[in-house]
């Protein structure tokens, strides 16, 4: 099966998108990340869910995860309020640390898609169509979608 058939509609965000909205989209649609497009509509990086957590969790808790145990639910709510008035740009790593966007062409085979995911340690790849000299995102493939396609059907118990 080609990437075109595997691809599913996928929400796109821009660096100026609201951070809270982006995080909510991930949560409600059970997505591992979001594709970030530039001003020109070209996709240029992935915002993984883990990066949202890195933004929310203070560095001192990341350095010493044991401290998380001392914090209660109210503190957790307080941390999540950091997303208010923030944009996707605030969530992204520094420009030099941005992950390269995993992209496959619409004609890529499922094995090619798997190879890109494995090489780039990404749970999602964008599927693009080179259309009249311009690149258009037609959707994305998540690792769960790919595995669902690749794995043999479980024997009936």
């Amino acid at each position: 099966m080609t990437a075109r058939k595997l691809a599913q509609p996928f929400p796109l965000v821009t660096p100026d998108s609201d951070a809270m909205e982006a995080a909510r989209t991930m949560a409600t649609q059970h997505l591992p990340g979001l594709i970030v497009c530039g001003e020109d509509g070209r996709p240029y990086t992935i915002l993984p869910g883990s990066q949202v957590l890195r933004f929310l969790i203070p560095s001192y808790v990341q350095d010493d995860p044991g401290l998380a145990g001392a914090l209660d639910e109210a503190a957790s709510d307080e941390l999540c309020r950091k997303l208010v008035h923030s944009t996707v740009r605030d969530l992204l790593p520094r420009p030099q640390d941005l992950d390269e966007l995993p992209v496959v062409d619409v004609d890529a085979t499922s094995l090619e898609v798997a190879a890109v995911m494995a090489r780039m340690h990404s749970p999602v790849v964008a599927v693009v169509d080179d259309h009249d000299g311009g690149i258009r995102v037609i959707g994305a493939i998540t690792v769960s979608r790919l595995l669902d396609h690749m794995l043999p059907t479980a024997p009936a118990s």
Partner: protein
Amino acid sequence: MTSVLVVAAFAAAYVLIATERIHRVAAALSGAAAMVLLGVVDARVAFFSEKTGVDWNVIFLLLGMMVIVSVLKQTGVFDYLAIWSAKRTRGRPFATMVMLVVITAAASALLDNVTTVLLIAPVTLLVCDRLGLPPVPFLIAEALASNIGGTATLIGDPPNIIIASRAGLTFNDFVVNLAPIVIILMVVFIGLCRVLFRSAFTYDPERVAALMALDEREVIRDRGLLLRSGIVLVAVMVGFVAHSALHIQPSMVALLGAGALVALSKLDPPEFLEEVEWPTLVFFMGLFVMVGALVEVGVIGRLGTLLTEAVGDQYLLASSALLWGSAILSGIVDNIPYVATVTPLVQTLVGAGGGAGQANALWWALALGADLGGNSTAVGASANVVVIGIAARAGHPISFWRFTRYGSVVAVVTIAVSWLYLYLRYYSFG
């Protein structure tokens, strides 16, 4: 001719270490390699000579303590202590700072300074976050307190370990001679904190509830391990105190403690070796070979004779010069290579004085100068550099000058008080 080449190679390696143009480990190993190539050092001189070789007591004492710290870190005891003590102050900023710096100083006396600030800084950020306080003054105060507290014991700061091993001083010698002045210095330091960081002490009663909501019991990750570690740590401290009576070197005490903790903790090697700083241990080995070469060709002996003649019986003058000179140099360059180089010279001076009290006080002048001098600049001690890094990662950058502005005041005052202590204890009433 060989002596000139050895001194030139030593100076070149020292400049590379001081300027950090290449990694200090590479610089020290290059210096050691140069000594081998010059034909001054062979395997016997480097590995088996007590006088000119690698000081294995220092290396294995450091290794043992690093393993002990690796296991203690897994318990969460430092987080517990910091949160518990901050809650006892009910969020009053100055009282909170006092508690945190006292914990830091006490921990630094028993453990490595860098490890102490690495353990205490994250929980300090948490406490400041809860109280809405600026964390920078707290972090700077902790770095300074770790350097003061580490001065108190043989194991508190690497220069003390070198001095103890080379001078044959015991754990109790350090406690008797340095712990009293460190307690005085901590009182002075707390007074300085009140003045230097006064703008940080804004009390917001509404934020206190957020601090009191922290549950310190939750940060203890393994109660059984905490109990076992506590028992072993107490045994290790008893071993240090009694090591001369038991005729067992501090390095052996540390290694036995480390071995006991490894056996009792059942941790995997990556966990109990987590805090072992292999580059630091290799750096020490390179340094010992470099300094040993100077001893081997007689440079240290000649310098020692010159110094002995110059000093005569003017031990107060020598102590004062050693204290202030060591402090200034330690603010600029790493105090470990400095102490490793100066120790044989001080040994000669003390030997010329017949090991009498006034001559022996030179060791305490060296330890106080080298340890406390690290506070004078942002790069004067490893603990300072580590704290600055943690603060930057947490979004609270500390500039070189900001740290130095506070550190230099603390260094000058603590060294002046130390000079007074040396004068009164060893030269006036000694």
